[in-house]
C-alpha cells in the first residue's frame, strides 16, 4: 500500500508509537521479508542501538544479520557498499551525522557513483541511517544538520522524516530502493509519538505531504522543523493567519509539484530550515519556486534558517542558533502583513 495524506490518515488506526519504534518495525518487517536485508553499525546488535532503533533484531535475526562493528565508519560503510554491489541490502547506522563526514569517500565516490560509472551494470541498494540535528546541548560535533552535503551529490537519495508514520513507510521504501539512500533521523524526534497503523504500508520516496492545509502562507520545512511549524501555525490561526505546512519528506527526490502548487495557492512562502543558512537546501527550494511560480508570489520568499555557526554547548546559545516557534511566527506575520 502506498499512501498519500488522506489515505494515511484514514489508515491510521489510533495505534500510537514512538518514531524509534516505527523505525524498528520497518527494519524488522523488511528483514523478515527479505533475507538479504541486514543491519550493521556501532552497538546496533547487542545494545540495540544508542537510540533503541535496532532493539530485538539480534535476537530475531542472529549475529550475521545484526552486526556490531568497530568504530571504523569508512570501512564498515565501504563493506556495506561492497555487500550491496553483490546483492545484499545493507542498512548501516552512523551514530551521528557528524561522523558521516568520515564516510564521504565511500558514500560519495563509491556508492553514489557506482551505478553511473559502470554504465548502469552495477547498483548499490543500501541505506545509510544516521541521526542529526540540534538538541540537548551536544555541542558542535554532535549537533549538525548536514543534509545539504548529501543533497548536493548526484546518485544519493535523501530522506528526512518528521513523523513516526512517515519514518516507518519511508524506511521500508528506502530499503527496497535499488539506489543508495541517506536516511536522516532527528535526535529530538525519536521519542515523539504518532499514529502508525498495524498493517504494513509504504510511503513512496519523492512524495511531499501537506501536514496542514492553509490558504494564506506556505511553510516548507522538514524533520524537526515540522512540529515547530505546526505549533506556530496553530498560534497563527488564532491571529487569523491560515498557514499551510508542506513537508517534502524526501529532499532527493524532491516533490517540486506539491511545493509549487502550494506556493501558487497561497502566494506567500516561508522556508524553515534548521541547518545553517549558507548553502542550504532552503536556498535551492526557493530558487525552484521563484523559477516556477514567480508570478504567483505576493512577496519575496523568506528563509529562516540556522545561524552560520558551529553549534554552541550552552543551551540558550544553542537555542539562538536555530529557528524557534517564535521566529517562525514573526517571519510569517511579516510576510503576510507586508504583502501587496
Amino acid at each position: 500500500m502506498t499512501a498519500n495524506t488522506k489515505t494515511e490518515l484514514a489508515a491510521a488506526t489510533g495505534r500510537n508509537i514512538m518514531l524509534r519504534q516505527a523505525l524498528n518495525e520497518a527494519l524488522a518487517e523488511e528483514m523478515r521479508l527479505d533475507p538479504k536485508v541486514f543491519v550493521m553499525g556501532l552497538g546496533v546488535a547487542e545494545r540495540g542501538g544508542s537510540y533503541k532503533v535496532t532493539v530485538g533484531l539480534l535476537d530475531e535475526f542472529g549475529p550475521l544479520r545484526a552486526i556490531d562493528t568497530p568504530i571504523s565508519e569508512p570501512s564498515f560503510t565501504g563493506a556495506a557498499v561492497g555487500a550491496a554491489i553483490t546483492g545484499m541490502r545493507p542498512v548501516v547506522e552512523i551514530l551521528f551525522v557528524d561522523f558521516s563526514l568520515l564516510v564521504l569517500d565511500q558514500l560519495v565516490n563509491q556508492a553514489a557513483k557506482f551505478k553511473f560509472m559502470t554504465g548502469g551494470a552495477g547498483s548499490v541498494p543500501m541505506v545509510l541511517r544516521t541521526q542529526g540535528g540540534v538538541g540537548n546541548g551536544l555541542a558542535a560535533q554532535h549537533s549538525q544538520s548536514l543534509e545539504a552535503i548529501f543533497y548536493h551529490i548526484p546518485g544519493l537519495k535523501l530522506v528526512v522524516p518528521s513523523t513516526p508514520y512517515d519514518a516507518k513507510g519511508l524506511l521500508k521504501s528506502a530499503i527496497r530502493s535499488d539506489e543508495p539512500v541517506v536516511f536522516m533521523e532527528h535526535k529530538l524526534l525519536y521519542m515523539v509519538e504518532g499514529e502508525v497503523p498495524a498493517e504494513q504500508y509504504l510511503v513512496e520516496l519523492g512524495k511531499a505531504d501537506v501536514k496542514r492545509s492553509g490558504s494564506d502562507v506556505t511553510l516548507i520545512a522538514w524533520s524537526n522543523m515540522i512540529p515547530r511549524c505546526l505549533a506556530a501555525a496553530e498560534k497563527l490561526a488564532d491571529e487569523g493567519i491560515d498557514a499551510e505546512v508542506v513537508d517534502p519528506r524526501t529532499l532527493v527526490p524532491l516533490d517540486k509539484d506539491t511545493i509549487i502548487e502550494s506556493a501558487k495557492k497561497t502566494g506567500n512562502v516561508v522556508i524553515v530550515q534548521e541547518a545553517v543558512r549558507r548553502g542550504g537546501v532552503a536556498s535551492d527550494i526557493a530558487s525552484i519556486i521563484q523559477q516556477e511560480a514567480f508570478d504567483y508570489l505576493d512577496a519575496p520568499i523568506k528563509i529562516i534558517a540556522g545561524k552560520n555557526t558551529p553549534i554552541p554547548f550552552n543551551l540558550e546559545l544553542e537555542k539562538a542558533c536555530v529557528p524557534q516557534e517564535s521566529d517562525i511566527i514573526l517571519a510569517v506575520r511579516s510576510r503576510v502583513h507586508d504583502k501587496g
Partner: protein
Amino acid sequence: MYSKETLTKMYRTLYAIRTFETRCIKLYRQGLIRGYFHPYLGEEAIATGVCAALEERDYIVSTHRGHGHCIARGAEIKKMLAELLGKAAGYCNGRGGSMHIADFSTNNLGANGIVGAGIPLGVGAALGAKIRGEDRVAAIFFSDGAANNGVFAEAMNLAAIWDLAVILVLENNHYAVSTPIEQVSRSADLYKRGLGYGVESFAVDGNDILEVYQKTAAAAAKCRDGKGPILMEAKTYRHTGHHVNDPGQYMPKETLDYYKSKDPVKIGRNYLLKEAKASPEEVKRIEAAVEQELEEAVQFAVDSPAPSVEEFLLEVENA
C-alpha cells in the same frame, strides 16, 4: 608438476596483459585514448597468478591500475578497449573509462579511482557471501600506496574479526605515484602490518607467476576453510611511471634494470618452455593468437559509435 595447459593459459594471460597495455599506450599517444591511464606493465604476474588460483564464483576488487586484473579475470578485450576509447559498446557505455571498469560476468567488482577505497568493498562482498552461506573468496588488489590509507587497517581488521574469506593482495610496486615506499614506511615489508591484526601474512615474489599462483591457491583454500583473511604482499616494480604521461625519472635505472631482468612475462615464457617443454613455435602461435585478438578488438573499438549525447541528457534530466 604443472600441466602444459595450465602454463599455456597463464602465459597467454601474461602476454595478453603485456600487449594490451603496450598497444593502448600507442593508442593513447595517437590521441584515441584520453584521460588517465595507469599501465600494469611489469606487474602482470600478480593478476595472472592470483586469478588463475581463484574459482569463477570468487570475487575480485581491482584498482586504478586495473587492466591486468580485468584481463586475468577473463574480461572481453574488445569491451575493455571500447571503454578506454569512451565508446557506447564499452563495459561502462563510455561513462567510466580506464579507472572504472567492472565486469560482473567475471565477478570483477571494479577498478577504483580512489586509492584504497576498494579494500572495504571487497570485505563487504565477502561479508555478503558469508551471510548468504556461499563459498566465495574475495581477492582484493591494492597497492603499497593504499597500505598507508586508513581503510587498509580498518578493513583488514573487519575481515579478521568476522573471519572473512578475503585475500588481501598487496601489490608493492614501491611507489605511491612518485613517492618511494622507503620514504613513507619505516618497514618496506608491508605484510608485517597484518601480523599485528592477527592476520596470516607473508610476502611473495610478485614477478614469479608460479609463486604467486601457489601461494594464492593455498590462501584461497585456507579462506574456504574459515581461516581467512590472508595478507599477501607481492613485491614487484613498475616498468613505467605512474601513468602514461609520467616518465618515471625518479625510478633509479639500476633498480628498473634489475626488475626488467626479472620480467614476469619472460619468466612465464621460460616456465612454458622449460617446465612444459613447449616449443618456441608453440609459444609464437600463442602470441600470434593474442595479437590477432587484440588487433580485432582495437578495430572494433575504433569503429564503434560514441555514446549519444541526446540519450545521456535525457537520462540525467530528472535525476
